[in-house]
């Protein structure tokens, strides 16, 4: 009871600050696209924690339809991808499990309480202006406490219309390609007043996913087959309203809808290519955001609701005479208040508090659980021209309804965060940075409650991250800019939640028995050159080395081995060359060898792979109209490769798209 009172008081304090801060916003909020981009660059350079982003042209150069395809070009990212447009996709950052990475769209959280990370294949790339990844997720601007809770944060920023002198802007296009891909898209934004607009976008996607793959079964058993049951039909639609009721205030209201029906292609099983399982999603989300900024105080309020319905159908399940038909419904309600106050010229303090309520019901669950979370974060930041420092804590109080006893159902944690950066040279600009972060992730509902597998006695999995690095930028000539960053990182995961078999191989249970120690290096090099007014070239390189050792049990034969699915090395390169309205892209991805289980023996080895994508685009402008025609080849050299064992990825494919902006 006493705890509840304290919590309420803390939230009230934050709300009161919000109520007293309705003052004019400075011009910094009115930045146009170009200025935002340049501000981004400087943020990246100043950042005391590792930060990567793709925006504008770079997003257009990514081969693929979803955010997952953009994220895999980042350093430190390991994508789990089951193949094809319909395959589920999640990312692990610096060898931490996917559940440690939070996902935000325009500052609003997207969650999946059942599995821990939403399917990143859900989010179409076409609508986005920027995709960024922050390791550590610091920063002195106001943001929800939840954005400070994850070990790393994916931020997606949707395109904000540039009306210019027009009242209505829009974009219509179509994309088609191999494996039955057909993807028309449409977007319309309309000014409803001097400082308000409304926008809608609709993005249906159809894919057969019937690509050829190699069944690699020795000299006598190998054959090439077509992937079956890999089709996807999805519709993503969003409605946005934006208004600036006062000079200092911005209001956004958002409604998102996602509906998908797909086949699950199943693992490649020798001699048995049959797959018939289906997955249906119906998601709806509503969001409300109020932002205000004045000289000393900036405030951000977020409130929202999301509803996600999932149906898993296995018509051939042998447990019953009828199909296996499981349905799950999860809902989330959240309320977040954040504020930043400037304290003198060099200091600022940020405070944020979030209330989150998650509910879940599902036919395969032992219970209909809910989880209530209260998060409170406080950050003190110091910034001068030459130094930057942040120190913060996050306090979390989380109640799980489905646990066995009242002792287990309440989790409270205090997680510290600390970062510092120092400029050591001006030309070339060089900065040193260091960051420490403690974070944890709650067990996902599947891990706690799912049928036989779930274990309600699980406690949170914690992660500590230490990062130290150097950032540099240099402009050797006019129009040429080089940016380099090199970071060394060390992670430690305690109480890692892992599935282990219990009664037999088909009965697994989740246990908090894992310990992982990771050491790694990250390098990024971005170079852009505008050779003359007509041609430009840009190169982005990212390389990661990581040794993620299983140190759970000293006496185990797997002690010190690389943990499953984490490659020692990953590399990506994006080359872009533009001449007038033409542009040429060439992307390379490399994933080093890795193991599918903690026993690092040849039988568990997945070989490394290189794949390349190439594209050519014509992008002319005529007054208010813009055209874009693009032809691309994915997996140019038709490599057979897998990301997840037994789930082959598509070979060479062609994608052609055309878009018209008005």
């Amino acid at each position, binding site marked *: 009871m006493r705890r509840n009172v304290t919590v309420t008081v803390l939230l009230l304090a934050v709300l009161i600050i919000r109520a007293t801060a309705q003052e004019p916003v400075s011009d910094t909020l009115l930045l146009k696209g170009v200025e935002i981009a340049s501000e981004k660059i400087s943020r990246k350079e100043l950042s005391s924690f590792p930060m990567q982003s793709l925006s504008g042209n770079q997003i257009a150069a990514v081969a693929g339809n979803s955010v997952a395809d953009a994220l895999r070009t980042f350093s430190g990212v390991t994508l789990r991808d089951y193949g094809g447009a319909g395959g589920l996709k999640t990312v692990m950052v610096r060898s931490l499990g996917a559940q440690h990475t939070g996902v935000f769209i325009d500052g609003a959280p997207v969650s999946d309480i059942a599995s821990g990370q939403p399917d990143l294949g859900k989010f179409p790339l076409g609508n986005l202006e920027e995709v960024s990844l922050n390791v550590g997720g610091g920063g002195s601007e106001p943001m929800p406490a939840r954005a400070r809770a994850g070990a790393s944060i994916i931020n997606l920023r949707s395109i904000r219309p540039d009306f210019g002198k027009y009242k209505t802007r829009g974009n219509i296009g179509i994309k088609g390609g191999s494996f039955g891909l057909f993807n028309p898209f449409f977007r319309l934004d309309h000014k409803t007043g001097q400082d308000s607009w409304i926008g809608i976008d609709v993005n249906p996607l159809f894919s057969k996913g019937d690509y050829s793959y190699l069944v690699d*079964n*020795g*000299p*006598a*058993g*190998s054959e090439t087959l077509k992937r079956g049951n890999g089709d996807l039909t999805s519709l993503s639609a969003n409605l946005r309203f934006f208004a600036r009721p006062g000079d200092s205030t911005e209001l956004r209201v958002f409604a998102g809808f996602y509906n998908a029906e797909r086949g699950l292609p199943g*693992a*490649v*099983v*020798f*001699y*048995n290519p*049959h797959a*018939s399982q289906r997955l249906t999603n119906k998601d709806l989300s509503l969001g409300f955001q109020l932002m205000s900024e004045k000289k000393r105080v900036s405030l951000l309020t977020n409130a929202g609701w999301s509803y996600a319905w999932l149906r898993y159908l296995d018509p*051939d*399940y*042998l*447990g*019953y005479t009828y199909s296996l038909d499981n349905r799950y419904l999860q809902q989330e309600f959240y309320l977040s208040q954040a504020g930043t106050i400037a304290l003198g010229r060099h200091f600022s303090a940020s405070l944020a508090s979030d209330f989150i309520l998650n509910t879940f019901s599902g036919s395969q669950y032992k219970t209909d659980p809910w989880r209530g979370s209260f998060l409170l974060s406080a950050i003190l930041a110091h910034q001068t021209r030459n130094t930057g420092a942040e120190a913060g804590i996050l306090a979390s109080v989380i109640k799980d309804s489905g646990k066995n006893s009242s002792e287990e159902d309440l989790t409270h944690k205090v997680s510290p965060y600390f970062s510092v950066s120092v400029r050591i040279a001006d030309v070339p600009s060089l900065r040193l940075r260091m960051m420490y972060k403690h974070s944890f992730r709650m067990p996902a509902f599947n891990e706690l409650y799912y*049928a*036989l597998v779930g274990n309600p006695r699980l406690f949170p999995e914690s992660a500590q991250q230490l990062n130290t690095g150097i950032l540099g930028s240099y402009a050797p000539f006019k129009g040429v800019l080089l940016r380099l960053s090199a970071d060394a990182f060390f992670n430690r995961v305690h109480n890692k939640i892992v599935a*282990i*078999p*219990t*009664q*037999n*191989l*088909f*009965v697994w249970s989740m246990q908090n028995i894992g310990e992982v120690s990771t050491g790694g290096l990250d390098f990024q090099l971005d170079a852009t050159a505008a050779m003359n007014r007509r041609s430009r070239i840009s190169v982005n390189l990212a390389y990661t080395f990581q040794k993620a050792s299983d140190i759970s049990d000293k006496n*185990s*034969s*797997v002690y010190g081995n690389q943990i499953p699915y984490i490659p020692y090395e990953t590399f990506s390169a994006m080359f872009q060359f533009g001449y007038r309205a033409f542009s040429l892209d060439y992307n390379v991805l490399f994933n080093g060898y890795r193991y*599918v*289980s*903690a*026993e690092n*023996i040849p*039988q*568990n080895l997945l070989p490394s792979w290189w794949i390349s994508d190439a594209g050519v685009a014509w992008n002319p402008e005529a007054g208010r109209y813009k055209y874009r025609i693009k032809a691309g080849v994915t997996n140019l050299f038709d490599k057979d490769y897998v990301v997840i*064992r*037994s789930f082959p990825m598509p070979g060479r494919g062609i994608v052609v798209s055309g878009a018209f902006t008005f």
Partner: protein
Amino acid sequence: MTVNKDRCYIKPVALPCRQLWLTAMLFPLMMLHSSCRKEPDQPRPQENDTTVYSAGIYVLNEGLFNQNNAGLTFYNFSDSTAETDYFFNKNGRGLGDTGSDACIYGSKLYMVVNISSQLEVADAVSGVSLGRIPLFDGSKPRQPRKIAPYGKYVFVCNFDNTVAVIDTARLEVVRLIEAGRNPDGITAAYGKIWVSNSGGLAFPDYDNTVSVIDPETFSEVSRFTVGINPYTIRPDGHGHLYLISRGNYGDVKSHLQVMDTLGNLVKTFGGFEALGFTVAGDTAYVYNYDWNSGKSTVLVVNTLSMQLVDEQFIKDGTDILVAYGIACDPVTGMIYIADALNFTGTGRVYAFDKTGKLQFSFNTGINPSYFAFLHRTGIPGN
């Protein structure tokens, strides 16, 4: 040990007298491992020396679900070496996904591959494949689980509630018999085929019956009630059948039970849990792996008195981490125990003599579980 050289075509129900003693002793083991029966249509070549000896041990490794790494390990007695990936090396292709039973019957080695939904048949001596029998209902996999040979056939129980009858000469499915839900154990004994219906895929609504199939009429003749989620079932040679009922992995534990041929549940052993067993002579060797304590145990039960006679079969302190399979070689009398170790990598097999002392051991593939003994006639090494 010697046997008559022309002992070939005998059905267990009609035995010449002179072989009765041997058959009575070996019958359960033959049914269990089906390792010393010739197939009717392929008479064994005449040999001068009639000594039966163990030439090798096949170990079928389950592998891991959806990883296509079921494997066959062959332990060769002539040079005391174990070759993992034996099937792949001989055939240039893998067995497939999730091995779930194996036996030698006549000159053939049969391997049930559950998720690939195949019965792989190989020459027992050379390991070279003779054919692969797909077990599908249209395009839908039947998911074969366990195998029992009888007469001219092998009987394979499938998770789709059927028992497939496979002609051993033509190597094709000739009949399908309806059984209970998700059968997960089968044995041939007392002139019948006994199928344990687990209902294991219908958690928490398990089945708890044993189907009795007449191998002459290919039909189910009766169905008896046992404990829930029944699994391995074997005869003891004294008119009883021993079986494991695995319970619900929760409050109902996994127990060893005894039923008679009329379907009466004669005994449920209390005081210990059991995951698997093998019967040799008048002894059942029963193993368990307790997840909570992480301990494996091997107990000895006398099948005549139906009493637990030894709580600790292993006498020399050999530590089995995760007991995962057990079998007795009827020719040598050795007891083999498979250890899954960490479930994801190399496993191990330990060979014990009857007094529970370790004789030798060897490495296997992932999750070793099923055994078939290669017996040959003549002088070892020829």
